[in-house]
């Protein structure tokens, strides 16, 4: 709200750095999932991880640019993960732990970042 200005104005606030940090972490996770996911595919395993890795990279890119679209992309990744989880393990809740807990934590973080983002670049 009142702060919008703060955002638009250059960058360098704590919010900016936090955002950069989040985007960087997501990039790293995305790269790991993509690389490992491709390896898994070559071994005949699940395609989920490579796809999710790409999704995280696509999430991170807009975030580096302070764009809300990153969160929207992530929502798609998260929903896809949810559907995949249910498809793969049904209602075996302990099996949801590795699949949904961390992605949901990321979702919450991104939602908390929303105030730092906008749909269009301000510069």
């Amino acid at each position: 709200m009142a702060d919008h200005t703060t955002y638009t104005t250059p960058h360098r606030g704590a919010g900016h750095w936090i955002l950069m940090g989040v985007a960087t972490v997501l990039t790293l996770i995305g790269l790991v999932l993509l690389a490992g996911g491709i390896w898994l595919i070559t071994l005949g395993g699940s395609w989920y991880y490579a796809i999710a890795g790409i999704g995280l990279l696509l999430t991170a890119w807009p975030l580096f640019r302070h764009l809300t679209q990153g969160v929207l992309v992530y929502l798609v990744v998260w929903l896809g993960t949810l559907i995949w989880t249910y498809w793969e393990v049904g209602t075996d809740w302990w099996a949801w732990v590795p699949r949904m807990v961390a992605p949901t934590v990321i979702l919450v973080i991104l939602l908390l970042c929303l105030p730092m983002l906008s749909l269009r670049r301000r510069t």
Partner: protein
Amino acid sequence: MTLTRTTRTGLGGLLLTTCLAAALPALAQDAPADPDTGVEVIEPEVTVVPPGNDAQAQTDTQTGSDPQTDAGTDADAESDADTTSDTGAEESPAAPGSNAEDTAPTEDTDQADEPTPAENAPTATSSEPEAAADTGDEPQPAGADDSAPPPPPADADAPANADADADADADDGAEEGGTEDGGPAAAATGTTSTAPSTDMAPADTATADTEATDTAPTDTAPTETGPAETAPSETAQADYEIGADWPYWGGDADATRYSPLSQITPENVGQLERAFVYNTGDMPSAEAEGKYAPETTPLKYGDALLMCSAKNVLISIDAATGEENWRFDPGVPDEAIPYSASCRGVSLWTDPDAASSDACATRVIEGTIDAKLVAVDAETGAPCEGFGENGTVDLWQDIGERVPGWYAVTAPPAIVRGVVVTGAQVKDGQAEDAPSGVVRGYDARTGALTWAWDLAAPEENRDGPPEGEVYTRGTPNMWTTAVADEELGYVYLPLGNSSVDYYGSNRSEAENEWATSLVALDVTTGEPAWSFQTVRHDVWDYDLGSQATLVDFPVDEGTRPAVILPSKQGDIYILDRATGESLFPAEDIEVPTDSGVEPEFMSPTQPVSGYHTLRFDPLTERDMWGMSPIDQLWCRIQFRRSEYQGFYQPPTSDRPWIQYPGYNGGSDWGSVAVDTERGILIANYNNVPNHNRLIPREEADERGLRPIDETQTASGGSKAEGEGDPQAGAPYAIDVNAGWRSPLTNMPCTQPPYGGIRAIDLETGETLWDQPIGTARRNGPWGIPSYLPFQIGTPNNGGSVVTAGGLVFIGAATDNLFRAIDIETGEVLWTDTLPAGGQANPITYEVDGKQYVLIAPGGHHFMETGVSDAVISYALPD
């Protein structure tokens, strides 16, 4: 503004952290049972001494003399004080009290044909030399003795000196004498000498034994023995009623773990509170740190609880108050600790020919981790002087070179028809040339060898091996508890594998025939009546770990005497007690054979039970787990990179293979409980894979993997069994990742549950209920407790008790809770937080009309459940 934002983000981070940390429980795994070694010193402790002994010191005998010996043995002598013994020829080491003066005498006893002290002495001497010699050559039994003997004798003095001599002597003597057998005769002789005074004791003992020996030795004739013994036993048995008492390790003689007590019920169990806490005082020394897993289950007989501590201290306490009546410390050295310091329990025997006021009329008998049988008076704790050498029988006799920790008894012996039947744990994975898996029967009165069952030389070695030889080395052993049918005179031996578990091409026919089988052995003859093999050509360490349970199994026309045999693969077999015939179709399944290193050795089929299995479906990639998609992905990659074609995947070397179920079960030594009134079988089980790889010899050499007899630098107790075991003599060593834990998080790669408890309809084998056992409270990534109260189902070790009141009591899981479960529904109705893991079987008993439930939560080093010397009894408030 900024602040706000920051705050929010911070919150998010916090949340993240919290969630990650908390949400994922990992579990610890469990452990198997075996060894490590350590070297230590012996502590001499003393104990209460019962009458005979006075001061006790212990002695180690052995020692000094031969270097070789020492090493092995205890000894080092620490000679502390005592003299213990070792030696012994057949049996025993020295009885402490007795010898007071000289150690020598004591030892002699056994062998000595005649009891005179004087003689003994000499003998001893001579022996020494020999002994030494022997050792060197071949592993000889006698030679080294190690362990400290038991009771400390009066003489506390002379430890050092004594040692040397004594040791040697004794041993030798024994061997020479070759007299082990003696057994049968003994009975006849009636030598029970219970000589009271210690001093005298030696002599007496000797006598007794001798006589026995002489007589009996040679004859293998079972018959003779049979009759006499039989009678006694029955009598004995009569005294041992389950109910107010818990007279056998498995509750009753049938090992049902079912108690008719009913004061505690599902309605009032919520009020259960601690009646007393007793501490045994047996906690690990610095050297033994991380090697304790006491696994102790007391007996309750009369007004007393009778138990052993982790290092075999025998203890009697008041069953209602926890006050100590007596204790007897056999002086087990730390270096004798195999994989774990464990003493699962003791056994009772009442001499039918003795007056109740006689010393040792009722005796407590245990096997120790330094391989001795020890018998003490149940009333006073005084060693039974007429048993072996002053209450001790040396089980190293005729086994070979004494390497502490290689050959250890952790299970209570079975006593049937007056014969004490024991096997021993041979530390897994060491070498083809390992101590024999021989199962031996000893006269409960005299400790004389009644028979030996050496599965590779049953006839030749029935009365012990010829002089200078040892029981066949490297044969499958029985490390767990047997159960016996007094009427049939059969003892049911759950056999494991030879020391080299994961390679089989060079095994003998006898090994292949008997390994991983339940063997019904006729205790009157020492000959097998029948056997039932649960794995053909086992290269997975699927030892039979559970004590079998005897029931009158419901069939169309009434009942049929049957034996229930649970396996580590999770199969539960129901076999005819007299013939071994399966009451349910035993099916064969085809298993993979061609992907391992020895396809020719693999059996193309394996048996499974048509009655019930605790086993889950084979793993798939989607069963991989973790705390996040990243470590889950890592596990999925490992899954795909490992060799796995399902159940009985042959071991591989070029890449790892998945073994599922792992060697922890299924059902392990905790065994199953059977509510014979309701017709419900209660089985707790593990559901954990192992991730293994055979290591080519060259690589093993580079890693410095050496067998226990070549190195005393045993690994720490936290190491899993099989985690880098040398398997000397085979082309491959073995590396086991027990529970297949991810190196990224130390959490399992597979999803929960890792353990459960199931109620099975006894008659049909159908599941009545099945629940995970154990909450996630103590588990989490990197070992951080999550405090999550949810039942995740953890690995577990230790069995249950079922009561007429309708409850199942069990600890076992890694959450360190002791719990009461409604037998009808599987619902947990009550829990208490234990000071360490409840990896021990609980019991229930009654004193003055009040029902108690008791567990000794000793913890387990490899299950990461701490360590404790507590024994905790619970009752309803007055």
